[in-house]
């Protein structure tokens, strides 16, 4: 029985909405039950109790939780995520400014992961149990076990010593006088505006943090790719192609690689969660100014609207990334497109 692709996509979107609702309820309640009065924290110790009470009333904190939640959702659907108590600006404005930096960092890390992990996985599988495979194994384990902030600091030190002039903090040289572009992704905006110096400079800034962020994922995905390749190498269909004289390189790079990319892709989707988590640390080390740093500030100062918004955006990013992974996998594997009749 063939499932209509539209039905499949609608089902996915349905779950997507459910997950977002569950996530928003959870973060909304959690942010409000942890100790500390947000109004008091926003106004500081010098404010009088009357001022604090007035702010609480203004924020609607005297209402029951359910009412507060519905009120929040109603506004959120109109694009209003409330005011940030700390920056005294709408949260959406803060996000617009900070989110692209983080998304750019994470996406470039993902590209790094694929560029490094898939070839290394294929090579180590091919030279199984030989020297190259052992080296690959040691490197993967190193990547997985060493925390990303340690990588970050080490990379910074190495660059500062070995590559004088290589940027080790921030997103771009302010001397370039870049006013900002439509997407907020510096590399993309630079290319769109024809300012290749901006794109190149942004890429140089990105290289170290993105590399530090992707190390753990590279280690994992290399291993998954390797074991998936090895498992599929033993299958009969490889023998069939061999016995009809199809060259080894075609069997590996065409037939095996496509079949063996399903497992690493699945892991990739899950990897987004740790990428976003690790971004909080990496952004601090590299003074990145993304929404992870923003979220960290918000949590420390109990900026309710900002915390909720950051978590929701991170969740949205994770879900969308996994949605894309699901679609990619179902493009690769025809068996997933068919709903089993049993």
């Amino acid at each position, binding site marked *: *029985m063939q499932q209509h692709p539209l039905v499949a996509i609608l089902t996915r979107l349905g779950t997507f909405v459910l997950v977002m609702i569950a996530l928003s309820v959870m973060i909304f309640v959690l942010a409000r039950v942890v100790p500390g009065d947000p109004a008091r924290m926003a106004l500081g110790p010098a404010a009088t109790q009357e001022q604090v009470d007035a702010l609480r009333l203004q924020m609607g904190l005297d209402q029951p939780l359910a009412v507060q939640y519905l009120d929040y959702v109603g506004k959120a659907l109109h694009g209003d995520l409330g005011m940030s108590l700390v920056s005294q600006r709408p949260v959406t404005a803060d996000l617009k400014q900070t989110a692209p930096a983080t998304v750019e960092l994470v996406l470039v890390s993902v590209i790094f992961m694929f560029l490094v992990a898939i070839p290394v996985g294929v090579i180590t599988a091919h030279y199984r149990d030989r020297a190259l495979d052992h080296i690959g194994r040691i490197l993967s384990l190193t990547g997985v076990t060493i925390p990303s902030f340690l990588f970050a600091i080490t990379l910074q030190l190495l660059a500062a010593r070995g590559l004088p002039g290589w940027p080790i903090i921030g997103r771009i040289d302010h001397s370039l006088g870049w006013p900002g572009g439509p997407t907020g992704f510096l590399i993309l905006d630079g290319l769109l505006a024809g300012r290749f110096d901006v794109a190149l400079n942004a890429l140089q800034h990105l290289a170290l943090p993105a590399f530090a962020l992707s190390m753990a994922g590279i280690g994992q995905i290399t291993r998954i790719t390797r074991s998936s390749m090895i498992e599929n190498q033993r*299958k*009969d*269909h490889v*023998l*069939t*192609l*061999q*016995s*009809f*004289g*199809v*060259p080894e390189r*075609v069997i590996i790079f*065409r*037939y095996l690689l*496509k*079949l063996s990319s*399903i497992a690493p892709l699945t892991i990739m989707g899950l990897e987004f969660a740790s990428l976003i988590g690790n971004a909080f640390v990496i952004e601090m080390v590299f003074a990145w100014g993304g929404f992870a740093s923003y979220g960290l500030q918000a949590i420390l100062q109990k900026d309710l609207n900002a915390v909720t918004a950051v978590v929701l955006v991170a969740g949205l990013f994770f879900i969308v990334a996994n949605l894309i992974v699901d679609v990619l996998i179902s493009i*690769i*594997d*025809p*068996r997933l497109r*068919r709903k089993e*009749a*049993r």
Partner: protein
Amino acid sequence: MAEPLLRVENLNVTFTAYGRTRQVLRDVSFTVAAGERVALIGETGSGKSVTAKAIIGTLPKNGRITSGSIAIGGRDVLTMARGEREALKGTAFSLIMQDPLSSFNPVFKIGTHLDDVMRFADRRDGKVSSKADRNARIAAVLRRVQLADTERVMNAYPSELSGGMRQRVLIGLALLHQPRLLIADEPGTALDVTTQDEILNLINHLVAEEDMALLMITHNLGVVRKVADRVVVMHHGDIVETGPCTDILHRPSEEYTRSLLDAVPPLYGPRVTDLPQSGEPPIVRIERLNKIYGRRNGYHAVRDVTLALKAGEIFGLAGESGSGKTSVARMIMGLSRPTSGKLAIDAPDPGRGKRLTQIVYQNPGTSLNPKRTVKQTLTLPLKSIGMDAARRDARMRELLELVRLPQSYLAKYPHELSGGQKQRVAIARALAAEPKILILDEPTAALDVSVQKTVIELLMQLREELGLTYLMISHDLSLMRNFCSRIAIMLRGEIVEEGPTPEVFAGPRHPYTRALIAAIPVVTDEEERLKPTVTDEERMRFLVKTTD
């Protein structure tokens, strides 16, 4: 005498694993003349598949040809340059693989496989071909294996075709470049018997029409009779006997060949065993049982099945894959709930934790946990009925005695046991908590015929000793003919025929039963004559189409 097409001479092959070298072929010599059909037969580990791999050049990395020669058309392939040998693939000889599903990469279309094989073979010949030209040639080959809608087949993914169609495509793949020798490794073994029959007919037809030679590798002696002129019998890496097909099957000169033939359950004739009918009251009663999988537009797996299993009998439930026989068994086991209908087991409650029914699965290689010793495997069911350690040990000794295994086997892991021994452990596990009814799900399908014979004998003795009732599920009708007292044939979820086994085989009433019996490959001409006949019209009505 002219030089034969294939000459294998004094071939010796060794395998090295974990630092130990084992000789798997010893001085194997045989020939295949142009246009001749030769069968290479033997049981697991006889070296028949290794011989084929050595000829094709796909021995695993730890396998090595230590001496001997393989000549095709008078030229030794072992001394050839690598490129020259590659060029022989598909043109001098072609391979038809055993399992049509796993022989295709599931994420590529059928057409992609065919096109790549043809493209690289063309390139080796120094030809450059266009996609359209290759497509036309592929379509022509697919029509030769009786696949008419070539467009659909080529655009389909492997999982979208039936097993029979995939096997046809595999044969087509082998034919792409007019090979002179076709090597077939157990073709159709993974398919239903009626489909297998069609595939063998197709191979015979093609070999005759294209004047190819055939080297058929099989363990099934019935298949041998159908497709071979000459037979080579292998055992433990040696060639035991070689001769014309009729001589080997009717007048074997070697003891080993005779024992192999004796182990094949006969379908008709004097060697057939008739089991007595049970006069006991029914122990399992099923009335109008239905099973539908899935909620909306569900799959109707079992339709209005009504059955009664008499105490002490061996009831056979026969049918091809997807006929619903396993669904019925699972419901009797209580592993799945019927959608509608009545199911009653007429026996006193056996008490805490014990079950009235137990099951022995098809493949003991996968039904036993490889990380647990025999003792650990047997402990679980005994613990679940609340036995203490001392009584468990006593019971385990008893169980091993029942299945005729030495006590020392308690400490062994499954990989240290042979297939037959593993199945004995599985039987011991099923018997551990003293069930009344044993469900046998193709209990010998994964075993060699000689091992099958001993396991069947054991099951017969156990039934006698312990007063068990068996429900056997199988598609192997020749085995069921000799092992079951009553039999029911299932087709698409329904029982189409039921009765005492001798009666069903003597006069099958339903055309599907006749088609099923007629498709079984048998060993002697006499059995072939006694098979029921089916008209083409009946065949069309009841068999799954493997063409399109």
